[in-house]
């Protein structure tokens, strides 16, 4: 998958344009996993929905292209997208667990997904397959016939994982899949997703605002701020030596359980308004290192070392 200069804007009824995603370039190889981290409103969910082709009606891809195995998804017809959904690209939402059909038992819902893409399979075979998937995700055998309301949040999210991997997709997009869950259940599911993903050898885009989860799943990380990617690279490189001031301050703002310091840190100011983002570098009003150039010129992602890119004027080599 390759994304080139993607811009997704929302058009509000009052005539404002919200530039949710504003110039994103990304590349993800087969069997690779990428974390997209950012605060709420930075455009990470819009990006995910844009890739999946499920934008709300008032959002539009105004520029850029999304190539998936050589096909430009932004120009594809709905019918083609339907072929791709779940078979090639599947998605797990934060609210996925509330999107299950309440009047259908869960194994049938999974069987439906299987049958939709494989017309030759019989209903019984599909159900059998669904049960196998449920077992893989650690749902007790007798729960397959249960309806969503009979399952706990963690179990419902397991069903969604089962659905997402049912057709062995090439790419799984997970949009804050575990935020509503407790930390212990979250841990269980992260381990599960990791294991299953590696079994079916699919790529993963994991979107989260929870910086603590970063590094549990992925080998690459992209940090988003105000619709743009400000830092991108191999996980250990970005973690150990964050290059962009935003990344560094964001990481520092998260208290750790083992660290030496219990001091509370934070980034002053508020995230920018996306209707009128600040000129130049979008982080400059909150950045402690701002100079004149930052206020005028928009920085580009530049390579600072092998597999590590950052968009900051201060890093010029």
């Amino acid at each position, binding site marked *: 998958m390759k994304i080139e200069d993607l811009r997704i804007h929302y058009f509000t009824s009052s005539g404002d344009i919200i530039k949710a995603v504003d110039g994103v370039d990304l590349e993800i190889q087969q069997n690779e996993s990428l974390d997209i981290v950012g*605060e*709420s409103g930075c455009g990470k969910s819009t990006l995910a929905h844009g890739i999946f082709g499920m934008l709300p009606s008032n959002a539009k891809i105004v520029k850029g292209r999304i190539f998936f195995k050589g096909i430009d998804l932004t120009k594809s017809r709905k019918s083609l997208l339907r072929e791709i959904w779940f078979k090639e690209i599947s998605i797990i939402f934060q609210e996925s667990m509330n999107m299950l059909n309440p009047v259908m038992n869960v194994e049938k819902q999974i069987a439906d997904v299987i049958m939709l893409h494989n017309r030759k399979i019989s209903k019984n075979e599909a159900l059998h397959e669904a049960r196998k998937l449920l077992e893989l995700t650690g749902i007790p055998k007798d729960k397959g016939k249960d309806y969503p309301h009979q399952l*706990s949040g*963690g*179990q419902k999210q397991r069903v969604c994982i089962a659905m997402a991997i049912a057709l062995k997709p090439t790419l799984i997009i997970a949009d804050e899949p575990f935020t509503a869950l*407790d*930390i*212990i*259940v*979250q*841990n*269980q599911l992260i*381990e599960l997703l990791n294991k299953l993903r590696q079994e079916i050898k699919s790529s993963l885009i994991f979107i989260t*605002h*929870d*910086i*603590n*989860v*970063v*590094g*549990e799943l992925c080998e690459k990380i992209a940090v988003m701020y105000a619709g743009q990617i400000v830092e991108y690279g191999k996980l250990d490189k970005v*973690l*150990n030596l964050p290059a962009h001031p935003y990344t560094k*301050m*964001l*990481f520092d*703002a*998260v*208290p*750790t*359980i*083992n*660290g030496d310091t*219990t*001091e*509370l*840190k*934070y*980034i*002053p100011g*508020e*995230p920018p308004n996306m209707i009128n983002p600040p000129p130049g570098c979008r982080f400059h009003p909150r950045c402690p290192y701002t100079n004149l150039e930052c206020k005028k010129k928009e920085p580009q992602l530049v390579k600072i070392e092998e597999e590590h890119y950052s968009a900051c004027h201060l890093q010029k080599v």
Partner: protein
Amino acid sequence: MSFTEGIKRERDFILEVRNLKVWFPVRGLTSIFARSKKYLRAVDGVSFNLHKGEVLSVVGESGAGKTTLGLTIVGVYKPTEGEVFFKGINIHNTDKKTSLLLKRKIQMIFQDPFESLPPHMTVFDIIKEGIDVHKLADSTSEKIKLISTALENVGLTPPEDFFKKYPHQLSGGQRQRVSIASILALKPELIIADEPISMIDASLRGSILSLMMKLKRDFDLTYVFILHDLAIARCISTHIAVMYLGQVVEAGKTNEIIKEPLHPYTKALLSAAPSLRKISRREKISLKGEIPSPIDLPSGCRFSTRCPFAFNNCRKNEPVLIETKQEHYVRCLMYQPMV
């Protein structure tokens, strides 16, 4: 601070919770026909007391009863058993006048600043409401002064800019500041904060917490935080109480709990806390399954169904909270002297 049932009742405890139980009757067909009534035991025998200026963090998974505990302390729920004392006054059993006073002295901050502020009221009206209810100001100019100071204290300056704003015009961080301002205007002494930052962006969490800590010093406040994140509890509190299924399973000074946890559940919570820089990661203790229902509680130790160290005795005998060393309490058979 102590976490076992009060031996002596002292005036200098700002908050004293004694063997508090809050049970909710379960309604439904099965309970109509059942011989004995079923209860959801949200809080089941919690005791602790707080000195002025202490900060207690109550930590646990959802369903542990943390929020019910908080709501009972502010007087929303009546206890099924046990008492809550504020400076020696039983808050659930006083006359109307004292009760109103207590409602001013004990305040609560809620999790979701998007829902806890009334959408049809301006910031000015939201703060004014409390001042009116408690008759803290007579004239309009006095009210304006109180409201301005409250907004200044939470860092919303200049305050006049915010008077006419509605909650939807504010960002999440600003909203939480408004809700803090609205209770600060009432000059409280004890604040229960129920997950005050879980809906706020990571980069701003620190700013809200630092603000609350500054207000604590400036106004001599006492806090009870309800949290699910031990890492945050570590940064702000003097004491931590870990709750599981309505009971305190471990409690003590913050450093003790973080550095030398005793209860398997605390250990699991600590090892589950994902850490960004994995250098000094603890040995991972994974728990199986999810928290059981507080209606059908497991027999014996409530944690025995998920505990990796559980032995037969754990399913038979219910452990009690004992003090293993100075100010460190644990509820686990492993630490209980043999009877």
